[in-house]
């Protein structure tokens, strides 16, 4: 079974004017088709529906304002489960009007509120100023010789007044940061003819203009003379001081303070009521805000799509060009009918399939389970149109390769449970719409993680590893007792030797292989590592060669589908031969050695490595052969492998050159049938040679257009030689690359063993009483380290390596990944501006 992307066709939609809006709306709901831009030369603001889009943008602006206000008052916007349809054009004006009215009302109330708040602030500032300046006056009159108002008003003649200068006061508030500069400039400009006293306000006051909360300072400047007064005024302006009139005497001050107090109270009342009203208005608006947002979004999208369409000569209908999956054509027709019915058009809109030589976009339908794996493949590249998709195989191979590196029963169980929890609660999680990117990544890969967990359980069982300990489920097949019963060992042997080797040749010691996985007794053995290393290394090579051969085999489906049968002989066959003759034979030797040598003759078992090297250097006559006829077979295989290289290198270029010069194709033509298939099916880049071969009979005809491009032999040869070198060297390096399976699984096992030994064992070694108390924190530490290092970090690294094995080692054998993704016009895929701003 080969999985390919959906068959696509280019279709023209004739949308009758009057119903075009409804048709597009209907299509947007279904998300069936991808629209093509038919006026690429027209700049965006010269298109037909610009004014409608502008209107939508205006509505968006108002909605943004509304939502911001709603958010400020902490009212939640209720979301509807069902998203409303795009409003019909007549209803748009209604919504627009509603929105504008709301905006006017809101902005008026807000303006009023702001005015009131400003007033209130001014009054508070004034109060503070009055309170503080009083202390200035009193302190001055007490300690200094300067005239104060009291003496001024009472005695009426002070020294300065005798000089003819009038004493003036300027008082107000200034931001604290500016005080020093203010004072300095005052002194410089007025040359000391002023006295400035200031004190800080205890409370933080909001700034009138910027709305920032800051410390302010109350100041009082006394000066002599009008000229200076003007300057002082200017300087105050320049430093944005808030000036308030200074009362003449204490009684007036008290009066002003009194009236201020009542006014502040009144203002507070009014403000409170305004806020209440504002809240009511916003509450009402928030009820329909969500549906407005969705409606405007859909409307804008529809007009953008309509802008892509071109007009037909009579201006009676709009013409749109779309890519549509062939299987959805019926749905498309249905949608258009539905749209025409809604739009009350007299003439129905209709679909017309048109032939096209453009490469269609790639659509692979996915569900929530496969989408994760599909995205793994697409992160490498979107597949060419109708190319074999590696995604379905990835569903199995990816978790499997991961699990080979992550083989641990315990860790696998923890991982599966985590994934299972995500899968079971996915509906609630989706509703939450978490904005945490890392969490989103994990969540969208929940099915991958689940599969990886399950496979890890499986490989964990094979490796017989559970948190680095082995499980003795079936009972070990090795028996130490048998060593004693056979008189090999006595108690004395135990006492004198620190290490002992079980001999499987002694009867009863080894009773046959463990039913499933590795025998648990290896967990006790000192040479466990070297045993597992040899096993895992061989396993990696076997898995790798099978995986790569599978990739090469998949390429045959591409060659056949794109009607390049010559590629099967000139590319696929030599590739497969090369791979199998060299590395397939290696696998054969590994398996053969496993089968041919038992416990009894294991001492005579040869090294495969030496044999394999000897195979290349054609030596090793002195070595005992593995099986009769080995040398002959090996030479034969080498010759085949070496012969397939020139075929790979020269075969395709020469064949294409021959075709170009007018040679007959390998296959006979099958008349019309094939011509039609080519024209309506795909014409991907490679198929262009096919056209060549198509037209060979017609090459006498003048003006044949099938010779698509100049055939450049050098180019093809260069490309092919690069491919050949890449493949041949790749076979070697890729096989070596699969050894990462061994390396990572080794690292994982060792790390978990170290963790057990360094942390958990500490707690277990204690005496029972201390141990019970001590084990609790130790287990905590063990659990935290297990999750953070072994599960998350090791998991990520194994994930990355599995990813690499798929992208590089597997997919480069057959997958091009240079296609374009099918992006249907679908309302549900459209992002909302407000969601990005966090307003919804």
């Amino acid at each position, binding site marked *: 079974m080969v999985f390919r992307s959906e068959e696509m066709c280019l279709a023209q939609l004739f949308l009758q004017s009057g119903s075009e809006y409804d048709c597009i709306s209907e299509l947007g709901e279904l998300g069936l088709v991808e629209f093509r831009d038919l006026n690429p030369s027209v*700049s*965006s*603001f*010269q298109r037909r529906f*610009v004014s409608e889009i*502008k209107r939508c*943008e205006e509505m968006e*602006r108002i909605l943004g304002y509304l939502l911001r206000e709603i958010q400020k008052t902490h009212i939640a916007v209720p979301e509807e489960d069902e998203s409303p349809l795009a409003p019909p054009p007549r209803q748009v004006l209604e919504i627009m009007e509603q929105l504008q009215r709301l905006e006017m009302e809101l902005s008026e109330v807000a303006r009023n509120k702001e005015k009131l708040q400003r007033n209130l602030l001014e009054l508070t500032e004034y109060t503070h100023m009055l309170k503080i300046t009083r202390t200035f006056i009193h302190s001055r009159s007490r300690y200094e010789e300067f005239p104060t108002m009291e003496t001024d008003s009472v005695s009426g003649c002070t020294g300065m007044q005798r000089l003819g200068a009038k004493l003036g006061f300027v008082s107000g508030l200034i931001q604290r940061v*500016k005080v020093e*500069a203010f004072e*300095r*400039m005052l002194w*410089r*400009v007025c040359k000391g003819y002023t006295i400035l006293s200031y004190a800080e306000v205890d409370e933080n006051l909001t700034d009138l203009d910027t709305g920032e909360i800051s410390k302010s300072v109350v100041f009082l400047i006394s000066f002599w003379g009008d000229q200076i007064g003007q*300057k002082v005024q*200017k*300087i105050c*302006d*320049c*430093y944005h001081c808030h000036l308030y009139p200074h009362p003449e005497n204490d009684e007036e001050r008290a009066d002003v303070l009194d009236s201020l107090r009542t006014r502040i109270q009144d203002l507070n009342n009014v403000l409170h009521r305004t806020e209440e009203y504002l809240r009511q208005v916003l509450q009402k608006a928030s009820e329909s805000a969500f549906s407005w947002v969705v409606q405007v979004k859909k409307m804008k999208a529809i007009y953008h799509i309509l802008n892509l369409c071109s007009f037909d000569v009579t201006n009676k209908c709009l013409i749109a060009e779309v890519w549509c999956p062939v299987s959805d054509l019926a749905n498309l027709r249905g949608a258009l009918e539905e749209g025409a019915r809604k739009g009350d058009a007299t003439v129905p809109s209709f679909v017309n399939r048109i032939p096209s030589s453009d490469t269609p976009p790639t659509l692979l339908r996915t569900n929530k389970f496969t989408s994760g794996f599909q995205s793994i493949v697409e992160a490498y590249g979107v597949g060419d149109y109708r190319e074999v998709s590696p995604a379905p195989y990835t569903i199995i191979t990816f978790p499997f390769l991961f699990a080979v590196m992550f083989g641990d029963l315990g860790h696998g169980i923890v991982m599966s449970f985590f994934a299972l929890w995500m899968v079971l609660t996915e509906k609630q999680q989706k509703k939450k719409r978490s904005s945490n990117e890392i969490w989103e990544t994990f969540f969208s890969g929940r099915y991958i993680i689940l599969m990886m967990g399950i496979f890890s359980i499986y490989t964990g069982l094979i490796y017989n590893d559970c948190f680095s300990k082995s499980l003795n489920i079936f009972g070990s097949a090795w028996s130490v007792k048998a060593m004693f019963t056979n008189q090999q060992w006595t108690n004395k042997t135990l006492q004198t030797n620190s290490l002992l080797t079980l001999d499987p040749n002694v009867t009863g010691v080894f009773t046959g292989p463990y039913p499933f996985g590795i025998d648990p007794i290896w967990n006790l053995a000192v040479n466990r590592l070297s045993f597992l290393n040899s096993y895992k290394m061989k396993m990696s090579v076997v898995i790798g060669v099978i995986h790569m051969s599978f990739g090469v085999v998949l390429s045959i489906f591409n060659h056949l589908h794109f009607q390049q049968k010559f590629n099967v002989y000139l590319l696929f066959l030599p590739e497969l031969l090369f791979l199998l003759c060299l590395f397939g034979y290696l696998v054969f030797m590994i398996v053969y050695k496993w089968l041919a040598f038992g416990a009894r003759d294991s001492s005579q078992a040869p090294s495969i490595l030496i044999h394999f090297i000897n195979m290349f250097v054609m030596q090793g006559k002195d070595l005992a052969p593995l099986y009769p006829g080995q040398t002959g077979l090996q030479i034969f295989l080498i010759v085949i492998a070496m012969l397939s290289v020139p075929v790979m290198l020269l075969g395709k270029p020469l064949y294409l050159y021959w075709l170009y010069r007018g040679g007959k194709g390998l296959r006979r033509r099958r008349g019309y049938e094939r011509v039609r298939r080519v024209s309506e099916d795909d014409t991907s880049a490679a198929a262009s040679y096919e056209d060549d071969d198509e037209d060979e009979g017609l090459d006498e005809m003048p003006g044949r257009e099938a010779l698509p491009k100049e055939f450049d032999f050098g180019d093809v040869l260069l490309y092919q030689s690069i491919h050949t070198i890449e493949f041949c060297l790749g076979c070697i390096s890729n096989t070596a690359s699969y050894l990462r399976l061994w390396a990572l699984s080794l690292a994982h096992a060792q790390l978990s063993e170290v963790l057990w030994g360094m942390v958990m064992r500490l707690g277990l070694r204690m005496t029972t009483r201390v141990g019970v108390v001590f084990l609790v924190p130790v287990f905590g530490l063990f659990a935290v380290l297990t999750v953070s290092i072994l599960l998350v970090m090791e998991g990520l690294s194994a994930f990355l390596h599995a990813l690499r094995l798929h992208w590089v080692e597997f997919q480069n054998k057959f997958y091009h990944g240079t296609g374009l993704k099918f992006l249907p016009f679908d309302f549900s895929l459209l992002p909302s501006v407000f969601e990005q701003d966090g307003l919804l």
Partner: protein
Amino acid sequence: MAELSFNKDHGYLEGLVRGMKAGILTDTDYHNLAQCDTLDDMKLHLQSTDYGKMLSSSEEDLTVSLVDSKLRENLVTEFSCLRSNALPPLSTFLDYITYSYMIDNVVMLITGALKQRDVAEVLPRCHPLGAFDQMAAVGIARTPTELYSAILVDTPLARFFQEAVSDTNLDEMEAEILRSKLFKAYLESFHSFCKSLGGATRDTMCPVLEFEADRRAFIITVNSFGTDLSGADRSVLYPSCGKLYPEGLQLLARAEDHEQVKAVADCYPGYKIIFDDPEPESGCKTLEDRFFEQEVKLNTLAFLQQFHFGVFYSYIKLKEQESRNIVWIAECVTQRQKSKIHNYIPIFK
């Protein structure tokens, strides 16, 4: 060796400014903008550039001055982002950039005060990059000395004032002279500062500042024709850090008409092309535009090197030029002068 540790202090900002440079409008953007029929169209197009929603949030009607002020606001936002993250000596360097705007603001305020304009009316027209606290008080001063001792002594401009202090009453002519003197002091100081920084900063900034100095010298000379500014008066105003110094400046001081200025420029290949007779197909460009063109060319060069401060200066200048371009196009669009619309100066071709 400064390059080794450059990224530690300034790497982030350099990356930032290079990223922002990528948002500078391209030829196609200008082409599209020039096709617009109304300001609304321009707004629509600008939305697709890095300016984004800059214009769309305003509720008032779109006017050229609104566009201008929004562009300035945008520039200031970007600049203050850079400035607030800068460490010395980059912070000093960035401050130097603002000083030229401050000088312009001071002169504008003085002329405003001379014309009896209200400060509140003049203030919004000042460039926000050169804003400083004491700005509104500039109008109080009557002589440069007063201006210096009372108001500007606290501002960073104070040190440029040492030569400009005089007791003559401020009139419009005097304000212009003051501007020239301040610029002279500013450019020389900036030039020596860049020199002291050394390395790539010196290599990129010095040519730019030298060009700036020479441009001022040329402009002062050309503008002085027909006024009572004598050659000797002029020579005091010429910044002495340019390529023209000293022979070229002496020649310029003696020049009496446009032809003589051109003769001076002919000795310097860099300036010869600016004063050359305009080619027929390029249309008639003013001297100012030609200088701007040359400036843009010089500034774009700064992006060819890494690990220096020149990119910051160049970015601000290029962005300013871009604002001028957009405003020019907007002006042409509103006044329906389609024929002149292509007189903008493209930045990255």
